[in-house]
């Protein structure tokens, strides 16, 4: 066996001393840091900066006046309405699902968890397609809906359904592992001492899961406001009527109205930044994802 040279031996010994770094380790370290930061810079920082640079390329007046466009306002309103319906519903679902999965033992539980996670694996386009097939004119309920003059596809209900599908697992998958880890002892104690179910939930469970809940809700909201593929398939892209903010960006962009498109994009980017800030604050408070 070829023994290490005396230099390598000395270097290895030096490297093994706590707190000591040799030249090669320092070189590798700065190389890796440079490589990581270049990658992030080209892929993430430059595009984000480009959003704001393009939005402001014709000055602040042009930037602000693009929000005066009635279609842009309608898109912002539609996005807010969609999120206002979808996020509370999926929050209620997430809490309910987490309660039944974390607090009780039953057969088929892991299968149920897999089914709840399913929408995360499905392509956004397929998520929209399934509602078109159900509620579109040739769909299962299409004829019935037309008879009763209810429009689902190419209207608000379809947008809400598709967004619900896409954001379905967000709150549940945050709460299930958290509640499983917290266990049942405190709830059992409260119930044994005579507290009712709702009282136990609001006074015992909720304070303990609040950070996980906030985490799930903000991610759900970010996805609900930003969903493009699924909503694009069901919306029909009727300008000013069924275009949410991401769809409106597409319309403006295809019309070469770059200031307008990037102005709306800058709003959604700020939403993403706020989401990340809240997320970081929640993690600072001691919450750890499981």
């Amino acid at each position, binding site marked *: 066996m070829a023994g*290490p040279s005396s230099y390598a031996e000395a270097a*290895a*010994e030096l490297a093994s001393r706590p707190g000591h770094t040799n030249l090669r*380790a320092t070189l590798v370290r700065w190389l*890796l*840091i440079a490589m*990581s930061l270049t*990658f*992030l810079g080209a*892929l*993430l920082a*430059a*595009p*984000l900066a*480009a*959003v704001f640079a393009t939005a402001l390329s014709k000055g602040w007046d042009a930037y602000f006046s693009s929000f005066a466009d009635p279609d842009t306002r309608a898109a912002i309103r539609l996005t807010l309405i969609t999120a206002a319906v979808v996020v509370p519903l999926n929050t209620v679902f997430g809490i*309910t*699902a987490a*309660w*039944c999965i974390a*607090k009780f*033992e*039953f057969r088929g539980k892991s299968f149920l968890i897999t*089914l709840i*996670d*399913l*929408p995360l*694996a*499905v*392509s*956004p*386009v*397929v998520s929209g*397609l*399934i509602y078109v*097939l*159900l509620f*579109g004119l040739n769909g*299962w309920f299409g004829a019935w809906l037309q008879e009763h003059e209810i429009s689902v596809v190419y209207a608000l209900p379809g947008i809400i*359904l598709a967004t619900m599908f896409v954001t*379905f697992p967000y709150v549940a998958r945050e709460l299930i592992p958290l509640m499983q880890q917290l266990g*049942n002892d405190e*709830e059992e104690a409260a*119930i044994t001492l005579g507290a009712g*179910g709702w009282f*136990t939930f609001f006074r015992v469970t909720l304070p303990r899961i609040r950070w996980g809940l906030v985490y799930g809700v903000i*991610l759900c909201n970010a996805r609900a406001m*930003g969903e493009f*593929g699924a909503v*694009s*398939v069901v919306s029909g892209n009727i300008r000013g009527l069924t275009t949410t903010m*991401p769809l409106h*960006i597409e319309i403006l962009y295809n019309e070469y109205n770059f200031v307008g*498109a990037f102005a709306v*994009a800058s709003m*959604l*980017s700020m939403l*993403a930044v706020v989401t*990340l800030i809240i*997320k970081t604050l929640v993690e600072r408070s001691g919450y750890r994802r499981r």
Partner: protein
Amino acid sequence: MKSVAQREPNVIPGFGITLGFTTFFLCAIVLIPLAALVLKAGGMDWSRFIDVITSARAVASYRLSFGASMVAAGVNMVFGFALAWTLVRYDFPGRKFVDAIIDMPFALPTAVSGIALTTVFAANGWIGQYLEPLGIKVAYTWIGITVALTLIGMPFVVRTVQPAIQEVQRDLEDAAETLGAGRFYVFRRIIVPTVLPALLTGFTLAFARAVGEYGSVIFIAGNMPMKTEITPLLIVIRLEEFDYAGAAALGVVMLAISFVMLLAINLLQAWGRKRMTVSR
């Protein structure tokens, strides 16, 4: 004292109602609509179904979707590992900030990243203008598609690999080096085996997300049939032609791919857990 194994009646209320509500909601929003897709495609004539999913245009789109997603996930495996390693092992100014913005692609709407990447990588864009003289066209080619898919897959790899790197036992590395092992030997024999399950899980998660991605790709892709047309876009085109059966058939192919990916991810995670417990 009762033994733990003995089943106690659960005093917590609400099992029936929460399970009922969960199942109902799941069926209404997820399962019945997905079943509608499968039944719609199943209602097609079998030979027509095969014709649709093996048409030259569809096959070209699979090749692009799979190829670009594979390359993107591979790029992410390399750079994601470097990023995760940098964040876990090194301290440098702005480390916390970098750690926080890794999740940006999760929070950033895909339409925004799509138009932003197109602007940056177009021939006159900030980065594209330096690549153009080298003969590298990014926007409106498969390279652009790969760049978009790399961005959306990046956090999956970093966030899966980060905890695994924390698991690498540094005293083991130190011991190996004291015994004369070179840095590369330590990397190959200690670091790679510990991180490998996480790295492959991250790769699969990034790949699974990339195959179905639509929003960030269509802006940068150019969307030429047979050349830069991804499968999700082909589904949208079929829908716009009111060819519902054709769209459903391609949708079923995508859904089947999703199921295979889910299975692969579960198997990889189980393997990773097993490796972790054995090594302890």
